[in-house]
Every structure is written in C-alpha cells, then in structure tokens.
C-alpha cells in the first residue's frame, strides 16, 4: 500500500492500521476495549496527535478511537471519497461587461471537503457559477489564480505579480477587476495596489469573506455579488475594498484602498474607513456613492504601473520604556526605512532620541504615525514632538501605520534621498493623507449609553 493509504497517520496509530490491514477509506469494523464501532476510516489531520484513528460513523458523525483501545479491525468495504466542486458552464452574454476575478487564496472562494474537512478552493467561472449563480446576471466572468496563499503570507512578490496582472488585464480592456483575498492583510494589499497601479480607468475591487463559503450563513456570496456588481458597472475607478457594511445581510461598503483597515478579528463588518467616510454603499442592484470626490470610470485603457519596492522597511509599535536597541538593531540590520506607530499625536520616549538621530545620520528614513489609528500625527504641538522632528523623524499626517509601511517600501524603491523620501511620503497619491477629517470620520459608538442603545435598537446591526 502506498503512503497515501495512511494519509496523515503516524505511529502509534499508523502501526495499528498496518497490523490489521486496513487503510484510509476502508469501511471497517473496529473492536475496541470500549466496544464495537463501524464506519469509514478518514485521513488524519497533520496537526492532530498520532494516537487516534478517525472513523466516520454511518450517521455522518466523526469520532476518534485511541490506538491502544483497538483489539481488532476488519475491512468490509472501501469507499474513497472523490471530492470535486460541481461546475456548470458560466453563461456568456455579449451584452454584459467583462469582469476579471484574480485569485490569491483566502476563503472567498472555497468549499469544504465534507469527509476530511479539508478546504478546497472553488475558483473557475464554472465552479463559482455553480455556487453563486447570481453572478451570471451581472457580468461575463473570467478568472485567474496568481497564487494560493493565506493572506498573512502575501508580500512584495505577490503584490508585484498582482499589480502586473491587473495592469495587463486593464490594457486588454476588462470592465473591472475583482481580487479575491484573505481578509487579514487585505488592507495592506489594497494600499500597495493604490500606489503600484495608478490612474486605473476601471474599478479594482478587493473582496474576501469573514465566514467561509461552505457555511450557509457565509458572507462570501453576497460579497462576491457586491464586488462583481461594483467592478462590472460601478463608476468608481479606484482600488477599493468591498465588504459587509453591517453584520446583517444588507449592503456592502466600498472603502478607499488607502483609508481602510480590518478592525475586528472576526465580525463580518470588520472593515472600516478610518478618519473619513467610505466611498459608497453597494447592494445587489448597484452602487450608491456616499461622496463625490472619487475618480470616475474612463473608457481608455491607460494605466500607470509602478511596482518598485524596497523590502528593508519595518513598523515599530512604540510602548512605554522601549529601549533604543530596538531602533539600533533595525539600523544595524540594514533597514532603510522605519515607520513608528507613536503614542498620542506621535511621540516616543527620550531614551530613543540618540538611536533615532543615529538612524537619520545613517540615511534611514523614519516617519511617525499614530497608534490611536484615528487622527493626525501633529508633532509640533508638544515639546516632545518638536524634539523628535529635530532628530530627523517626519510626521506622516493621518496616514494609517500599515499604509505608511507599504508606501515607505514603495517610495524607497524609487529613491533613498531622505528629502525626496519625505516629499513623496507626504504627497498623497490617492487619499492616504487627507487634508481634513470630517466629524463623522471618527465614530466608535459607545455601547450602554442610552442614545446609542436607542440607535442600535432601531437599525439592524
């Protein structure tokens, strides 16, 4: 028998399977010290322990049997599960716009193998049509997978490939781009695409899901419908993130790629526009802009692709009593740029000053953002801020720390001249710095307060 016959099993459970001549997918009768069990032997997850054998009982439940309880096993049949995503031809309608869906991995398009629990990506137009037939009412869908990584493993290599693919598609004349992406670092990718792909004539929409699409209550289908609708017929030609507005199945929000952040580890409505309002709302029927200052869709195929990137950039999240060696070690390790997430208006403690001065002298670009997330770095207000600026640290206004990180990498890909770096960093490309923060740009409602409770009760969450 091949190794695959014991998929995932290690000793001691593996020896027990061997001893009794049964394998994965055997329909087996198992005698144990706790009684007799009958079912199909399933592959074992690689991360689970080596002591148990997994059996799928006739009732559909899985159970684990410990190796040393097993007295005997007998194969009475063999039922290998061949799992495939059902696929139907995606209907082509010449009257409908062409949308390109680019896959990077993540849970937007995946199904569970019911027997093993493994996640299988559903991705071809046919597979997507099989699961979300509504897509055919919106567009003619084409798909391309450029990588299959969890979003925490996205980096400059994938960003560059993604940007290049997008630019090529735009030049081929698609009506819009949708990017399936894991949600954890979706805002990093949205930000870097805003810099790498500039002046796009068509919408570039990033989408994911907070609940995998094998679940009946998943947000995946609605997010996919909203994002393809935005890409196919929306008028906003920018890099956007399209995810749930409220946690209810009601509408999605389109966030500008440079102002959006994942704000909750698990809520569906986790993405929020920070220090500003979103670009638009979107539902099945179309896009409703919430503001007027967006870049309009054009009918040319011109786009500016600029994928320069210097990887030697880091974020330092300041904490009280931070020691200067943190900064020193980055400088000594050859970093070219540091984004500090400082306290309040953009502060760090005094012991860091010599290290910051040294960094500047060694040609390392250091910029200041705020760990309060909302608001501006305004370093001239307090003595501390002014002192830090004198050391060569420049404030990045209200750029989000993660956005400053990817932008600094992109800028350093162009120049290492510190004055030029500061100029480019503080000159906004697409909303990463705004001139003003409207009063409704910061709304973290406080639960428990009577008027807030009244509001929440009257509108679905």
């Amino acid at each position, binding site marked *: 028998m091949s190794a695959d016959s014991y998929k995932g099993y290690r000793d001691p459970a593996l020896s027990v399977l061997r001893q009794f001549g049964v394998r994965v997918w055997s329909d087996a009768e198992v005698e144990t010290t706790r009684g007799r069990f009958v079912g199909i032997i399933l592959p074992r997850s690689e991360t689970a322990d080596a002591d*148990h054998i997994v059996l799928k*009982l006739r009732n559909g439940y899985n*159970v*684990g049997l410990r190796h040393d*309880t097993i007295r005997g096993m007998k194969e009475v049949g063999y039922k290998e599960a061949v799992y*495939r995503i059902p696929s139907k031809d995606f209907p082509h309608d010449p009257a409908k716009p062409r949308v390109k869906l680019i896959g990077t991995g993540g849970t937007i398009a995946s199904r569970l193998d019911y027997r*093993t629990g493994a996640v299988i990506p559903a991705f071809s137009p046919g597979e997507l049509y099989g699961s979300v037939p509504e897509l055919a009412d919106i567009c003619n869908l084409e798909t391309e997978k450029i990588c299959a990584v969890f979003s925490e493993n996205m980096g400059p290599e994938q960003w560059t490939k993604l940007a290049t693919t997008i630019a090529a598609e735009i030049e081929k004349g698609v009506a819009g781009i949708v990017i399936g992406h894991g949600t954890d670092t979706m805002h990093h990718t949205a930000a870097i695409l805003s810099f790498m792909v500039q002046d796009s004539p068509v919408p570039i929409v990033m989408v994911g899901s907070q609940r995998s699409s094998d679940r*009946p209550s998943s947000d995946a289908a609605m997010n996919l419908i909203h994002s393809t609708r935005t890409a196919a017929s929306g008028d906003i030609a920018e890099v956007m993130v399209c995810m749930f507005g409220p946690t*209810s*199945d009601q509408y999605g929000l389109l966030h500008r790629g440079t102002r959006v952040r994942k704000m909750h580890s698990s809520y569906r409505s986790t993405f929020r526009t920070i220090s500003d309002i979103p670009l638009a709302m979107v539902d099945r029927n179309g896009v409703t802009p919430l503001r007027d200052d967006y870049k309009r869709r054009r009918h040319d195929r011109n786009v500016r692709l600029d994928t320069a990137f210097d990887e030697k950039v880091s974020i330092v999240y300041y904490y009280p009593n931070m020691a200067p060696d943190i900064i020193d070690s980055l400088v000594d390790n050859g970093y070219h740029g540091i984004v500090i997430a400082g306290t309040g208006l953009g502060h760090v403690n005094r012991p860091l000053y010599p290290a910051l001065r040294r960094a500047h002298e060694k040609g390392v670009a250091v910029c200041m953002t705020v760990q309060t997330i909302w608001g501006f770095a305004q370093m001239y207000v307090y003595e501390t801020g002014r002192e830090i600026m004198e050391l060569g640290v420049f404030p990045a206004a209200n750029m989000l720390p993660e956005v400053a990180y990817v932008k600094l990498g992109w800028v350093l890909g162009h120049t290492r001249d510190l004055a030029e770096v500061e100029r480019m960093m503080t000159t906004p490309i697409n909303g990463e710095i705004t001139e003003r923060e409207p009063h409704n740009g910061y709304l973290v409602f406080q639960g428990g307060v009577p008027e807030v409770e009244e509001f929440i009760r009257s509108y679905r969450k």
Partner: protein
Amino acid sequence: MHQYTSLEETPREWYEEVGLMSGLEIHQQLLTRKKLFCRCPAGRYSREWDAEILRHMRPTLSELGEYDGTALMEFRTRKQIVYHIHKETVCTYEFDDTPPFEINEEAVDIAIEIALLLNLKMVSELHIARKQYLDGSIPTGFQRTTILGVDGWIPYRDRRIGIIQLGLEEDACREVSDVGHVRTYITDRLGMPLVETVTAPEMHTPWDVAGVAQVLRRLARATGRVRTGPGAAREDVNVSVRGGRRCEIKGVSSIRRIPLLVHNEAFRQLGLLQIKDELAQRGVRPEALEVKWVDVTERIGRTRYWPVLQALREGQRARAVPLRRCAGLLRHPIGPGRSFLQEVSDRVSVVACIDQHPNVLSTDVTDGNLSADEWQAVRRAAGAGAQDAVVVVWGPVDDLQTACEEIVGRMRLACDGVPNETRQALADGTTCFERVLPGADRMYPDTDLPPKKLPDERVERMRTRLPELPWHRRQRYVEAGLPEQVAERLSVSPRAALFDRLAPRAPRHAGRLATLLADHFRWLQRKGLPVERVDEAFLEKALGLVEAGALRFEALPALVEHRARHGHDGGPEEVAGRLGLRPAGDAEVAEAIAAATAELPASSFRDAETAWRATMGRLMKMKKLRGRVDGAALGARVRELVGGQGGRP
C-alpha cells in the same frame, strides 16, 4: 380500509398489524452555568431585545454536487431571518461573528455521566461536527454537535431498548413569528448545552413510545444535573408504518402528548398509502403531472366567498392548477378531520409563504366556498374534466409560481406514498408539514475546533460518580418507609442526593423532609423563585435546630420560601425569630386555643367532634401557631381542652 378510530378504542394488536415503528430523539438541556461554546450565562431567558440582525441562509452543495432537499426547500422560501439579540443573554459567538471558544467541560462531564447511564460505547476522541439547519434557527446555518458514545441500551419492562447514540450539542433559537417572508427568532436559548439521545425504532405502540420517553427522562434527571421546566426537555418522535416512511414529529414538549401524535401519524401514513394505491390503480405517474396553471382572478373576482374576495381586492391573484385524473383524492381522509388537501395547503403555506388560511380550495370540496357557477368557470378555464381535480390558490403574485409548483409537487410525491418529512406537533394531536426530512449529507466537520481527547481516566472517574439508577433509588426509598408516591417523585428529583445527605440528620422526619425537597421546592420553583439560594448548609442548620427542639419541622416550608425569596438574610434561627416561627410553649398554645374558642359561636360546641373541628379550623385561620407546633400534638391538646365537655373550656 382503515377507518379512523380513537386512541382509546384502538387495541394494541392493531399497531402491530400496521407495522408501527417508532423511535425517539430526546433533547435534554444540561444544568451548566455557561453555554456550550461561549461564556454566556446558560438558562437566562428574556423576550427583551436591544438589537436586531438580518441574515439569509444559502444552501451549500453536498459532496456529490447536489443540494440537500431541505436546503433547497428552505432556499425556495426566500425567507429573511431576523434575530433579536440581548446583551445579557448572547455574545458575538451566538450570532456568528466570533468563532467558538473551547467546549464547556462541565457539559462534557454531565454528558459522559448520561452516556454511561445509557450503557453506551464511549469514543476516545470527540470530533465537533456541523449539522446544517437552514430554517434559520441557528444563525451560523449549522448546529455544533459531537458524539460521545454509540450503541447502548436501557431497560424497558421486560426487554432492552437500543440507544443508537448520544450527542452533545448546542440548543437553537426560539421562534417568535413566521409571517410571509420574514421569520423572527429570539436568541437567548441559542448555544445552551443539551444532550440528544437517539433510540432505535424499537417501540411498536404509542404507549411504549411514551413509556420509553419516561425512562429516558428519569435517567437523565437522576444525575441531578439537567434542566427541568418548560422547554428544558423536548422530544422528537420518529414514526412509520409498514410501507410508509419515517416522519419526524418535532418539538413535543410533553410526554403525555406523545401517544396521540403517534396514533394519528400512523393513520396519516395509512391514508397516504391508500392514495398511493388509488393513484397506481388510475395509472397516474408522477412525471405525467405537469406544472400547469391558469390565472382565474377575473373569473372569481366577484365571488361572495370572503377569504378569496378580500385577497383579490387587496391585489392578490388567483390561479387554478389542474391535477389530471386526481378527482376525489384531495378529500381523502388522512386523520381526524383532515384530508389530503391539508397536506397541499401546508406546503403552499410553508414553502410559498402564503400563510393566510385558507390558502387553497379544491373541486373535491365545493360546499361553503365558491359558487357552483364559479367552480364551473374555474374548471373550464383549467380545462378539467370530471376525472380531474383542480386546486385554486391565491396570494401575492410573486409567490404563486412556487405555490403552483408545490401543489403539483405534493401530488407527485403522493404517487410514492409517504414522503420523509419533519412535521410539527399541533395542540390537537395532529401534525403539519414543517420541512423535508434532512439527509445524512448535512454533517460535516467543524474546522474551527480541534478534536478533544476523552481519556479512560476521565471516563472512569465519571463512572465512579454515577448516580444510583432512579428505579433502584425509588426501591430504596420505599424500603426505608417513604410512601410510594413520595419515593417516586423524590427518586427523579434533582434534590434526591441532597435528601440522602440530609436524611440522617433528621431521622424522625424523613418522610416530611422528602416531601419538602421533592414537592415544596418544586412548587416554589414553579412560582418562579430561585430555589438554588436555599443552600445545603442552611437546611442542615435548620434540621439541627429541629432535632434540638429549637424549631418545629413545620416551620421549614416558610423558612425555605423566605430564603428563596430573599437570599442570604441571616441563619435559620434568626430568620425564624424574625418571622415568628419559634416553637410555641404550652402556655402560648393554651392561650391561642382559648382565643380561638372565644371567637366561636355557641353552636360550635354542640358536641365534642364539632367543637374540635371548629377550634382547629379557627386556629388555622389565625395562623398564629403555623409552623410553630406539631400538628398532631396540637390536635391532641385541643381535644384535651375542648373535647368531651360539649362546651367552651
């Protein structure tokens, strides 16, 4: 032909004759402090809500690329599911915005205990599964559930009933309303731990089904760690007859209702089998029944039949659906006061969401609805001959396509006899269609939680702590001299173990202690008082006072009630003092008797017996001695003072 007979007049042998098979799925909530997969408090109910969430359930594909029948049906309903949530009873886990936390160990312990009582074979590793529910009763669209053991048994009369499995799972939402395309749930109960016990279909009369349910309930209660009260235990009853198919009657809240439901389900299935035979005889094949309809709004728009007239005036439309060669079948009886048209109506109501009743009419029953002329117009429009039946349905135009499909679909299913269904129990002992019975494919692994070991040490530790079996306990109480009925109630009371611990402290009062714990506590609980406030130490102290003569046992009910009402409010002696429950001395008793007799009319003293009764009655009313004297001793004292004299003392 099987003429309907009532439950009472149907002999046991008849059920055997029709091949009745029935099994139970019993859902029993566990008495834990917190919920199963989050740290919300368990058992806190509130109809209040302070926020609302809207969700839709989308069917997911099975591994064969097919949609599960139930899933498809639920999707056809196009329901909007609204959840009412309250910050005290649910957190972000229940409404599916936070992944599960680790399983509640307290619940696992209780479930192991129950599994051992059911003689189940225990698994060595728990795997959490997702069981899909698309009716919206769980916001995730699935229930997290796990199997602890399989293939056990319980004793029932002179035989064993097989137990297929015991699962530990989270409870679902409570439905608030289901009107049109909006179904509303309250989420407080969601996520409460419960065990689901599934028996083999080894019961063959309605009475046996109820009997086995009783045994299972008593076993679960013997642990003292399950919840009691409304909704804490719910039975699903699976029923089939020979030639029929399994139907699951859901959510039976009381065991007493089981026999009639089983009985009526047997008749319903027999009725459906007769319809099947009749269809076969007429040569009607399901594929020959086409989904055809004609709009008859104009033809019956001026009817005097109020339900139709009103609906059409509101802008609804009416359609006539011809069913070829089906004349007479829609009025075929399928139970007491129910005909096959009811089955059609149920589907239209549940799937097409046309839920204002009546929602259908048929050419089989034309009295008291449309006029003869109108029926003729309908028949003509539908192109129906004398052998054909026509169903008329009316409702919002968007729902009528589904309605017509369901009407024909139900008739097609009739060609095959009894469809697998989940049915809802109605108050009159009949049932109505709730959904298509889900298949086995709706189970899949929960990727959010790793498997959990169930080592021998843990199982064996629980085995040493197993409670006495209720029937053994009952026997022991009877042998110890408790009256049979008190022994019975105490043996299944959650306070049985407490009784065992306390009884040696008050050997002379065992009987009264049993009644206090089994009945008085229950009565207080039903009044809504938190009896868990009455802790063991308090009772122990009170019994000590009784033994020492510092308190009468008669004072205990009032003390217990006070404790339940006010919580920690001083020791029993102090509370007794405050409530005036200290034992009455001889002089005080005599004084009270004198006061009582003084208020009585002379006629009360015409003979000794009347005098005694009247005095005792008056003393009771005065309440002065309540809980402060021994009843028998007081009786004797009254007899001594007023008896035999025929006059006032």
